[in-house]
Structure formats: structure tokens, C-alpha cells
């Protein structure tokens, strides 16, 4: 046998069609918007119940309340204690979790499909009859406060949280950490949570119920009607706001953390919202900038300079404009050079645009990797919930790859130039100011302010 010619990569085989699973959508009598994707690959099912509201519906004094309510929701119901609830669910092999973010609260359940009928009533009970027993509320509140304290001493989390206040004007909800502050959480008690849940945990107001797995739509809608049929009403609306920036002047903030052996760097500004017509070109533009291993940022900071273990950039798309942010961690002595390179790469992309080759390979990555991201019922349910949260078209994920493949170099260049603004970027660095502040000043990229890590 002659040796194999290894000089070039092998040709690919024949591509196989693979579509996002078909979804049956119905609106039940009480207004619940139900979407069911039959995915009989394994005997599993995942349910996501999304209720609109979330942290952006809360004013600063109540920041973190939605997050805390979600964390406390399994503390007990009018029928049973939290301990009994966990015991009974886990004996059925069911995992239930609740999570609140900026847009709303999602209660999720995953179990083996043949247990769904037994497990479903617990999900309904959690949402319809949460009781927030005082002891469990105390626990959840102390846990939340301890988590806030942990974030304040974790250099990466501290950098991310501090950067928000530099990107957004003070009255924009996104200027604060999503999980609230010590001041806003400390006084929450059982009554607060009961009141919150009664108002916020409602099916209307563009909420939705998503099911993916080895189930029949008819079986699911019967279960929903039987156990959630009496559920009515809508949460209070979210007053629209515009995500104004804190400033349009480029500034550097050093959060002093004595003894740091590394600097956590965030460079960013207000980005754009989920409804932007630039969504797909910007998806490609960000990926080639800092969203993949072979992105410009990573090849520069990691593979060329060895400054970091990794660097990434992202746009957080929300119903209003979320942040655009580059994040990385580097050794103290290369902190200023790393910041310089990040800004230089932003300028280079905005001024010169991407190459055709970069856009083509990034399109291929984004379109191809999509198939890997709809492998599990959990992933499929999460995507369907995304449609609910942002009011996207029912066929959105069926058309997703075509939309990615349709992105041009020109459109990417325009989107990037519109949404990345290096001259307005805020630089936030958590590290040892004694070692890094002066070199950052020497960069002359904007005024440098040194603040203490403990909030003073």
C-alpha cells in the first residue's frame, strides 16, 4: 500500500439535510401560548415556562427581586414543604429549576418522558401556589447576599459588574448587576415575594410554554389544561426605556485589587437590541472579531502575543440595547499592551472591514455549528423559548442557516461600523493599580481613574 497523500485536508462527504424540528403551536383558552416540538430521539422531555417581566421591569430599589423569587420558588407551596417537594420530584428523577433574567422568569423541568404525567402537577403547583415559607425566604435571601459578596471578590465577576455602570447611564436597568445589590436585597421578606409572585407569575403578556421531547402535542395540551387551566391574568407591563450610554468619552477605570497577579479586562459600550435589522451581519462580524478561537482578537492576544489564556467579545441582545463587550485576563506586566491591542483590533475592523475570506469562513462556521446546537431536547426548548422572549417568527430557526449564509462582506462591514465604537469604549480593569495604572495612563487613550474594589 502506498503511503496516503496527507498534503491537503480531505474532501467532505455528502451533506445531510437537517432541519429544526417542526413545532405545533396553539393558544389555549386561558391565553397560554403553547409550542410543542416532537423530538423522539431519546425518552426525555424538557418544559420551559416563560413569564414576562424580569429584572428590567423592576426599579433600582427592587433590583434582584425577580432573581431572588426564582431562587426561592422551590422553598415550598401551599400543599407541601420545600423539602418534601424536592424529595418527591427527585424520586421521580425530575430536575426542576427556575431562573430569572432581564426579560422574565423561566421555570424548567426535565424528566424521562414516561414520568411526565406524574411530574407535571408539581410544575403547576410551583407556579400557581408558591408559598415562600419565611425560613426558606431567609435562606434564599442570605444565599443571594452571600453570592453578591462572592461576586465582589471574584476578579472576573467584579470586572463585569463594574463595567456595566461605566457603559450605561445610571437610570438604565442594565447599569446594575442582574442579581441585585446588598441594599436592594436585604429587606426582602416573605410578603414581598408573595406579592411579587402573585403579580408576575401570570400566563399572559406574551409569556409562553415550550415543550420539546418524546411527547405528543395532544397529550401535552391536555396536561396543561388539566393543571394550568385555571391560571389567568397577565403581569404588569414593562415600561419601555432607551439604553442610554453613561458617556461618549473614552475612559479607563482601574479597580484596585492589591496583590492581583493578573488583570481582568473589560472593554465595551452600549451595543444594540435583539430586534436590530443588523442581527445576522453583526453575528458574523462579532464572531470573526472575538467569537471563535480563530477570531482576530484571540489570534492576536493569545496565539501571537501569549498575553492571555483566551479573549472573547460578545453582543448581549436584549429587548433594549444590551452591552457589547470584550473580556480577557492577562498578566500584570502586559495589561496596557493588551488594552492597546484590543482597541487597535476594534479600530482595524471598523475602519478596514473584514475580508471576504473571513466572512465566508465565519458564515460556514455559524451555519454548520447550528446543527450541533440543536442536538438535545434542552437545546431545542431553549431556542423555542428564545422565540417567545423576543417575539421572533415561528419559522425563525428553520430559516436561520439561510439567513446566516446570506450575510455579505459589505453588510458585515456596515454592521460592524454601526455597532462597534472604539472611540467611545469604556475600559475597566480589575487588578493591582500600583503595577498597571501608570502604563495605562501612558497609553493616552483617555482619562484613567483608580477606584477601590470594595466600592469606596
Amino acid at each position, binding site marked *: 500500500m502506498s503511503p496516503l497523500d496527507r498534503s491537503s*485536508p480531505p474532501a467532505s462527504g455528502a451533506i445531510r439535510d437537517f432541519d429544526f424540528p417542526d413545532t405545533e403551536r396553539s393558544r389555549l383558552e386561558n391565553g397560554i401560548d403553547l409550542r410543542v416540538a416532537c423530538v423522539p430521539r431519546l425518552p426525555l422531555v424538557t418544559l420551559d415556562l416563560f413569564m414576562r417581566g424580569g429584572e428590567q421591569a423592576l426599579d433600582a430599589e427592587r433590583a434582584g427581586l425577580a432573581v431572588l423569587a426564582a431562587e426561592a420558588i422551590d422553598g415550598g407551596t401551599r400543599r407541601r414543604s420545600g423539602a418534601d417537594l424536592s424529595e418527591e420530584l427527585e424520586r421521580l428523577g425530575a430536575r426542576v429549576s427556575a431562573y430569572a433574567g432581564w426579560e422574565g422568569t423561566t421555570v424548567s423541568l426535565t424528566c424521562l418522558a414516561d414520568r411526565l404525567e406524574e411530574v407535571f402537577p408539581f410544575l403547576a403547583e410551583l407556579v400557581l401556589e408558591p408559598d415562600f415559607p419565611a425560613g426558606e425566604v431567609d435562606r434564599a435571601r442570605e444565599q443571594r447576599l*452571600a453570592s453578591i459578596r462572592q461576586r465582589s471578590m471574584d476578579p472576573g465577576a467584579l470586572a463585569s459588574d463594574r463595567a456595566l455602570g461605566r457603559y450605561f447611564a445610571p437610570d438604565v436597568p442594565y447599569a446594575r448587576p442582574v442579581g441585585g445589590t446588598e441594599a436592594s436585597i436585604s429587606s426582602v421578606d416573605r410578603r414581598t415575594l408573595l406579592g411579587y409572585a402573585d403579580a408576575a407569575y401570570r400566563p399572559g403578556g406574551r409569556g409562553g410554554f415550550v415543550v420539546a421531547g418524546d411527547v405528543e402535542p395532544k397529550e401535552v395540551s391536555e396536561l396543561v389544561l388539566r393543571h394550568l387551566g385555571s391560571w389567568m391574568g397577565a403581569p404588569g407591563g414593562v415600561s419601555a426605556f432607551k439604553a442610554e450610554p453613561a458617556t461618549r468619552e473614552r475612559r479607563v477605570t482601574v479597580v484596585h485589587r492589591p496583590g492581583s497577579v493578573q488583570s481582568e479586562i473589560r472593554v465595551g459600550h452600549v451595543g444594540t437590541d435583539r430586534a436590530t435589522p443588523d442581527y445576522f451581519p453583526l453575528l458574523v462580524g462579532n464572531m470573526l472579531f472575538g467569537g471563535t478561537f480563530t477570531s482576530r482578537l484571540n489570534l492576536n492576544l493569545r496565539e501571537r502575543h501569549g498575553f492571555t*489564556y483566551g479573549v472573547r467579545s460578545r453582543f448581549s441582545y436584549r429587548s433594549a440595547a444590551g452591552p457589547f463587550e470584550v473580556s480577557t485576563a492577562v498578566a500584570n506586566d502586559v495589561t496596557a499592551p493588551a488594552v492597546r491591542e484590543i482597541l487597535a483590533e476594534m479600530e482595524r475592523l471598523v475602519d478596514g472591514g473584514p475580508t471576504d475570506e473571513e466572512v465566508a469562513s465565519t458564515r460556514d462556521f455559524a451555519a454548520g455549528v447550528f446543527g450541533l446546537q440543536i442536538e438535545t431536547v434542552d437545546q431545542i426548548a431553549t431556542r423555542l423559548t428564545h422565540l417567545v422572549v423576543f417575539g421572533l417568527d415561528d419559522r425563525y430557526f428553520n430559516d436561520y442557516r439561510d439567513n446566516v449564509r446570506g450575510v455579505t462582506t459589505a453588510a458585515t462591514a456596515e454592521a460592524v461600523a454601526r455597532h462597534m465604537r472604539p472611540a467611545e469604549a469604556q475600559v475597566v480593569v480589575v487588578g493591582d493599580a500600583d503595577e498597571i495604572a501608570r502604563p495605562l495612563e501612558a497609553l493616552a487613550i483617555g482619562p484613567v481613574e483608580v477606584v477601590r474594589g470594595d466600592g469606596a
Partner: protein
Amino acid sequence: MSRLSIPVERHRLDNGLRVVLSPDPTVPVVAVNLWYGVGSRNERAGKTGFAHLFEHMMFQGSTHVPKNKHFELVERAGGTLNATTWFDRTNYFETLPSHHLELALWLESDRMGWMLPAMDQEKLDNQRDVVKNEKRQRYDNQPYGDWDERLQSLVFPPDHPYHHTVIGAMADLEAATLDDVAAFFETYYRPNNAVLAIAGDFESGRALEAVDRYFGEIEAGAPVPRLPGNPDVAPLIGGTVRDDVVANVPLPRVIMAFRIPPYSSPDFATVEVARALLGQGKASRLYRRLVRERRVAKSVVAYAFPLLTGASMLLVWATGYPGASPRDLEKALAEEIEGLVEAAPEEVERAIALSEADLVSSLEHQSERADRLAMFELYFDDPDRINHDLERLEAVSIDQVRAFAAERLGPNNRAVVTYRPGEER
């Protein structure tokens, strides 16, 4: 109870490469996972962290694949990739749209057969800097970041291969040379010290033919040398050993470990069930008692390391609230762990139910299937264990759990690291 049946086919190439195939055409995705039988346990004194640094060098190119090309090609194909280094092994993996299977085979075989000619000092210096930054980011600049170094040195004696961490020491990383890279490659990165697992959408006959075409001509190496140091270790630590730390951490934390039988021991199933009773889910003993009822812990974790060499360890930790004394937290934690001697049969039923659902969920990913198949082949010569893993747990009796707790989870077999917030000394 529903039962899974994951297809498992075993083959061995003439050069000793073991191949496990698991076709499943449900989704057009294929996962390739290549396990090498080398990890931090193979490192000699003064060379700690080298197995992991070497893993980074594997991405720096090979004869036919220039630097960065590996990532470029996999990403362009719509795939994902990574690698991990651990105590007993190192693995490299790609998940791709299934029509790109041969790309992964070409890339993996090129670096298995033709890595060394592409190595140079610049690449080594670059990846050394990357790894040093990884160490800073994940350990040195993190609250509690040195816990595993402290704990491993308590649980395993100085001459045991698990005495040092996978990330290693900065000074040792500094000292690594290109000669070390070459020697390590020649010694451990041979087909007869590796398992290739492929799971997902492919046809077995054609896949095996392709594997043989890409990997078949790579020459076998000598059997790998025996482990440095002494893997033999007494079953029990023989007392309570401790390391009380005052550090710049947000909350008090107690980390406790117990020496346990290795992953290869039949008794390991009992360890896994005991672990689940302690820390799996919110109805578990530690969560229910310490987090929910006594409210002395903010969070709890229990984890059984699946380690092969002489012994392994069961890890339990509890994070307390501000102002709490680590000693009180340690006492409470020890009480609940020792209470396992009176565990009830219903607790085992709960643990099995959760484990079953978790197992089915994890096997949705072809990448997870390939990972487990490679592990079971490399560790146990038994990839079909993927279909029987739950039965091992179901066979564990309540008496075995109680006996294990009595024998292994007391003060005669305990290593403790405590963290108290304060100025570092």
C-alpha cells in the same frame, strides 16, 4: 424502567490503536474523541504541569497542518473542538457535521504521526505564556484557587503520582524544553497508547476503513514506562490531616476529602451511591440538612474523583456565611457525613432515579457518548459498560453504603482544608 441501548463496536489496528464505533444516524452530527493513556500522573519531579503544556503544543501544528490551521479547518466545517488533561489521561475531541468526519481523522492522525517536525522554540514560548496565564486565571488569581494543591498533598503522600496538581508549578513550566516535548511525544503519543472513539452519524464499515487509512501507517511505540513514584498507598489516611488557611476569600469554606478505592475497584459503585446520597440534588443529605434545615452552609458539593492509580478521593465541601467559624462548619459537615451510617433505602432509590435521568440526558450528546466510550475502553477494556453503568449503581445495597461510611468516612481517613476570610499571612 426504560433501558438504553447504545451501539458499541470494538476494533484494533495492527499498530495497537483501539477503535470504538457507535453509529447513530438520528442527527447528522459526529463526535470524535481520542484518549491517550498519559496524564499528570506520568510526570516526574521537576516536570509538573508538562502533560498539560504538551496538550497545548498539540494544537501548534504538525507536518501537514500549519499553526492555527487545525482550529480554522474545524471551525470552517461548523465544528467545535477542544482537549483536556487530567490525572490519568489526556483527550482531544472534535464534534462536526457528520459529512466532515474525515477532516477530524486527518487532523488527529497528522499530529499523532507527524507532530514533532512542526515544533519550534517560538511556539513553545508562546504556549508556555498561554498556560501560565491559564494558571493565573483559574488558580492563582482566584479566591480558594489553591485548594486542590493543598488537598492533594494531604490525601496522597509525596511519592504518589497524585501528590501534585495537573496544572503544575510555575517553575516547572518555566523549565520545559523542546527536548521534553520530543521525549514525551515519543514515549506516550503512540497509537498503542491511545483509544479512538467515534459516535454519531456514520456507516461503520466506511468509518473503520477511513480510520485505518489515516492511522494505520503510524508506527507503534514501545510499551509506556511504569509510573514514576509509588502508586501503592494505604487504604486509609490514618487520622485527620489538615491545613487551615486565612486568605482573601469572600466566605468561609471547608473542603474535606476521604481516601477511597480507585475507579477500577468494584467498590467504586458504592462510593458513587454514597456520593449521591450526600450531594446529588436538593433532597440529598448535605443540601437538606446543612443548607435547608440548619442553614449553616450557603452551598455544598460532593464529588467522587474517578481516579485509577492506587486510590482515589471523595471530595465534599461546604461554603459558609459571612462571619461563621470554619470549625463550626467543619463539625456540622462531619456530622452529616458520618450520619450516612444510618442511611435509609429510600435515599438510594432517589439517587438511582436521578442518576438514570441524568445518564439519559447526558447521552443525548454524541460527544458525551464518544467521551465515555473512549474512557471505558482505555480504563476497563469494556466500552459496553456505557450500557450497564446504571446497573452497577442499582446493585449497591444499603448495607454496603452504611459499611462504606463506617469504614471510610470517619476521622481516621479525613483530609481537611479550611478557609477563613482575612488578611493573607
